[in-house]
């Protein structure tokens, strides 16, 4: 079966999960037509970028059991690579290739060095080392303002095909103008799909099984003849590579990059939350987690505004539902979901369908 091959034999193994995944895919594909307006499109694009980013983090945390806080660094390298190249070389595809290519090389080299030097140490120390490196990199990026635009970041033009000015046809299709933004959006969705399936393939390869073995019991994996340092380093390098590509996609979509959009520690925390909410070590969990989190992040305030207005007569409830309290509710939602679903949404759904079978 083609689907089985595309998914590398790793099916959702839960009907509800399969439906959710289909709904996410359909939602992304239909966004420009079903939900007009710039906000919806931007949210959908962000969902795509984060699906790649969170999946790449899951490769590291969920599959290999490595806790790294340097993931946004690689995300930032990808975004800055494209931003700097397009800013300096002008809006050409060559610049995109040069930017993404050199960012990939830098990320691979950095992750290789960090991996080889520090994956031998205990998990806790590794987390600390990555935290230090990431923080140093963040400072470094804002200090090099001549290249990176410092705290202000860089605004740049993208190749014409992807820019709003480009038009495929004079006539709008189903009420949507066929401009470069639309092309950029669908390219983004397609790239996300390809990168996700690629990662799914990797975790389901013999190599992917060894990563899981190392996560489960590194001592025994060594006794079976697997050199865990080598595997951990590969996992680190691969994960960094995919995160870099996610960063490049983000920059291309936003036509802007700055420290707050791709390097900040807040994003690192968000990634962690997304992978935990969705379910570690499943990859599908990253899709569900990223989608849910970004939807809540962007629409919870709107929802609360409605609710607060509806409750305008009830004093305390009205204040609790005020849009300014949205972070409080996000926090409560997070605590509840971790408490109710310690194995994440995907883990819970799979356990349910296993119990039925």
């Amino acid at each position, binding site marked *: 079966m083609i689907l089985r091959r595309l998914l590398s034999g790793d099916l959702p193994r839960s009907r509800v999960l399969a439906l959710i995944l289909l709904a996410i895919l359909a939602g992304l594909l239909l966004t420009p037509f079903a939900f007009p307006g710039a906000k919806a499109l931007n949210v959908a694009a962000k969902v795509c970028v984060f699906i790649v980013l969170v999946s790449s983090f899951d490769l590291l945390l969920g599959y290999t059991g490595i806790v790294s806080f340097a993931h946004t660094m690689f995300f930032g390298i990808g975004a800055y690579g494209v931003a700097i190249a397009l800013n300096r070389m002008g809006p050409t595809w060559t610049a995109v290739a040069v930017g993404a290519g050199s960012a990939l090389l830098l990320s691979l080299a950095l992750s290789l060095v960090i991996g080889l030097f520090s994956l031998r140490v205990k998990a806790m120390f590794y987390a600390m080392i990555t935290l230090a490196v990431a923080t140093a990199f963040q400072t470094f990026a804002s200090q090099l303002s001549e290249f990176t635009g410092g705290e202000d970041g860089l605004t740049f033009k993208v190749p014409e095909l992807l820019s709003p000015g480009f038009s495929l046809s004079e006539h709008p299709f189903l009420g949507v103008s066929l401009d470069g933004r639309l092309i950029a959006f669908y390219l983004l969705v397609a790239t996300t799909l390809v990168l996700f399936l690629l990662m799914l393939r990797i975790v*389901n*390869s013999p190599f992917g*099984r*060894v990563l*899981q073995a190392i996560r*489960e019991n590194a*001592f*025994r994996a060594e*006794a079976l003849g697997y050199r865990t340092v080598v595997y951990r380093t590969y996992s680190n390098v691969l994960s960094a590579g995919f995160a870099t590509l996610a960063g490049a996609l983000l920059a291309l979509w936003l036509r802007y990059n700055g420290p707050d959009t791709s390097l900040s520690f807040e994003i690192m925390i968000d990634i962690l939350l997304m992978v935990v909410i969705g379910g570690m070590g499943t990859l599908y969990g990253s899709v569900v987690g990223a989608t849910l989190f970004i939807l809540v992040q962007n629409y919870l305030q709107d929802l609360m505004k409605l609710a607060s207005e509806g409750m305008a007569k009830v004093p305390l409830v009205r204040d609790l539902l005020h849009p300014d309290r949205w972070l409080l509710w996000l926090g409560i939602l997070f605590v509840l979901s971790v408490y109710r679903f310690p194995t994440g949404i995907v883990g819970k759904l799979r356990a349910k369908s296993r119990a039925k079978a």
Partner: protein
Amino acid sequence: MTSALETQDLTIRFGGHVAVDAVSCAFAPGTLTAIVGPNGAGKTTYFNLISGQLRATAGRVLLHGEDISGCSAPQRSRRGIGRAFQLTNLFPNLTVLENIRLAVQSRAGVGLNLWSVWSNHRELTGRAEEVLETVALTAKRDLAAAALPHGDQRKLEVAILMALEPDVFMFDEPTAGMSVDEVPVILDLIRSLKARRDKTILLVEHKMDVVRELADRIIVLHNGALVADGEPAAVIASPIVQEAYLGIEVAK
């Protein structure tokens, strides 16, 4: 003929404590040697030094005459020293079949293959299923290892070693904690392995009847030192064993 495995003055100190004290012993190919001794005698530590989980303070380990003292545990495993652990040491959240497959896969050397889909490696899965059959765990192949009862976990522990197919098999109390009716499965496995005469087997075991039946030779460790070595009947009868080992057992 060179020995399959040999230790020369193998020693490890933890601080002031000498856990294994200058143990020199050669193991002939195709033989089964039982290693006995009271708790704390250094049997498991001796195993750890051979399979590379610990590095010796002094002395050497030779595999087929070649010095492997500098090799890491994974290197020794790939060179043909296989080990089953006394405390069950599995991949708890992977299925029973996957636990075994990982050993088969290590032997096949496809661990770094990123592109193929693991479930398409029929030959590996087939081999894993064969091994599963020998320990009578086929019905539980899709359960997580952690979900197995203790006896089945012990069987899986041994099955992983079988799947690895090393030249030197090291069993560390393979039947410990098993119920009486489960023990024969493991003993039959070891017996048939021994009958092949092409594998070298080291067995740490407390049950004297098992040792007497299976072993070609017994060595006795006491306080980290090798105190007796020879034919099973002679060693068991020797005063030092009566005192150092059986004395304790009788006293129980």
